[in-house]
């Protein structure tokens, strides 16, 4: 793989003059780890996550010429991934919604997640959020996206993203219970 150790700030890279191969290597280097976390979280299965990721990166390779700005790369890649995920697994995920709710700490441990009860409680709280609230929160907390970037990916307004994030965190606190939430650091109003 291309040596990217000298690249200190991915957002400073000028993609428009870069060789396609190097651009692709940079994408893998810079974003594959974050994307894998997101992929595993969405797919709930290691094999599926790897599969969708491979498909998404192949699609990214095919349309890499359309990517001009490095600062847009992450959002662009996540959008490709979300579409690929929806295309392949939306129905399946829907079908197995009941099974998902039966996740145990052992299941999570098997996937490589932190098996402490407080971490498990947080993941469960996130899973129990309505999807409209969960999507932007996952993108902000797991993906590190700004509200404007989330708005672009979800194709909704920034103010709608802000409202959903506000409600998502409020609901997280309700799900976790005030006692747990305080223990986790979220103090009351």
């Amino acid at each position, binding site marked *: 793989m291309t040596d990217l150790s000298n690249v200190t700030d991915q957002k400073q890279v000028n993609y428009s003059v870069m060789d396609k191969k190097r651009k692709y290597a940079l994408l893998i280097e810079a974003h594959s780890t974050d994307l894998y*976390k997101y992929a*595993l979280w969405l797919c709930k299965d290691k094999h599926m996550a790897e599969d969708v990721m*491979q498909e998404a990166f192949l699609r990214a390779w*095919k349309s890499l010429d359309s990517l001009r700005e490095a600062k847009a790369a992450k959002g662009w890649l996540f959008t490709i991934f979300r579409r690929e995920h929806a295309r392949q697994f939306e129905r399946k995920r829907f079908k197995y919604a009941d099974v998902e709710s039966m996740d145990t700490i052992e299941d999570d441990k098997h996937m490589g997640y932190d098996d402490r009860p407080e971490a498990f409680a947080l993941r469960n709280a996130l899973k129990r959020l309505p999807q409209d609230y969960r999507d932007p929160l996952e993108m902000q907390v797991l993906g590190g996206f700004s509200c404007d970037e989330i708005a672009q990916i979800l194709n909704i307004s920034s103010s709608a993203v802000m409202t959903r994030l506000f409600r998502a965190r409020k609901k997280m606190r309700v799900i976790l219970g005030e006692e747990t*939430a305080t223990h986790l650091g*979220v*103090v009351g109003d």
Partner: protein
Amino acid sequence: MNLVYKEMKCLEFKRLALSDPNSSVHGFVEHSANCPHCLKYVGGVRQMDADLASSVDVEMPAALMARLQLNQELSEESENSAIKSVLPIRRYAMAASFALALFVAGFMASNQFNGSSIGDDYQALLSGVVEHMNEQAITPVWSAERANLNATTLLASYDPSLKLKFLSNLQFSRICPMGQYKGLHASLETTDGQVTFAYIKGDSVGQLLDAGYEGYISRVKPVRGGNLIIMSRTNKGLQEADSQLEKAMYWDI
């Protein structure tokens, strides 16, 4: 009045803290610097975010990164070979025609190629598989363990008695739509490159047929409960894959 004004600002701050705890909006930053209560509040929100991010933190498998790179290289090779096959076509048209004629004649002479037009059943199977192959720019490369496990499970879902012996060069397997059919799409790495095969459940075609189809050397082979379609760029690859599948696929009845 002053107290009401402060409460309003704190409420507004808390609302923003729950929407965007790392906001760089001037009023937000200024308020957190001057209001210890709100600073503590936003600190709590940030801590929950950090705990949440940490709770879903996992290590990316090292092999996956290598596979992402490998897939790209294979894709690039595939793109290049497609371009190469188009660009010099005029220059080498006569030579290619001559080579093709020899190739077809060779097959017909060895009784491995049916020169007559392909029947509708064969045509439908082949076009379905090729259509799917064209849609999928390149087949992902999995570990043999994963590909075999998947293939075994999928074949058993078609017919519990259908078994597959472990193929160390099996690279991929998945149920895919293929034209009007749906079937197992898989690929084998042979000494002559990647060979695609598909198992499509349904009525078996009458007899084995070898044909050149859309740039592939193809074989449609009737098997119990369906058909096996093998697509290769070379005859050697086709023969090698078929020989392996012949030994590996069996019905445990």
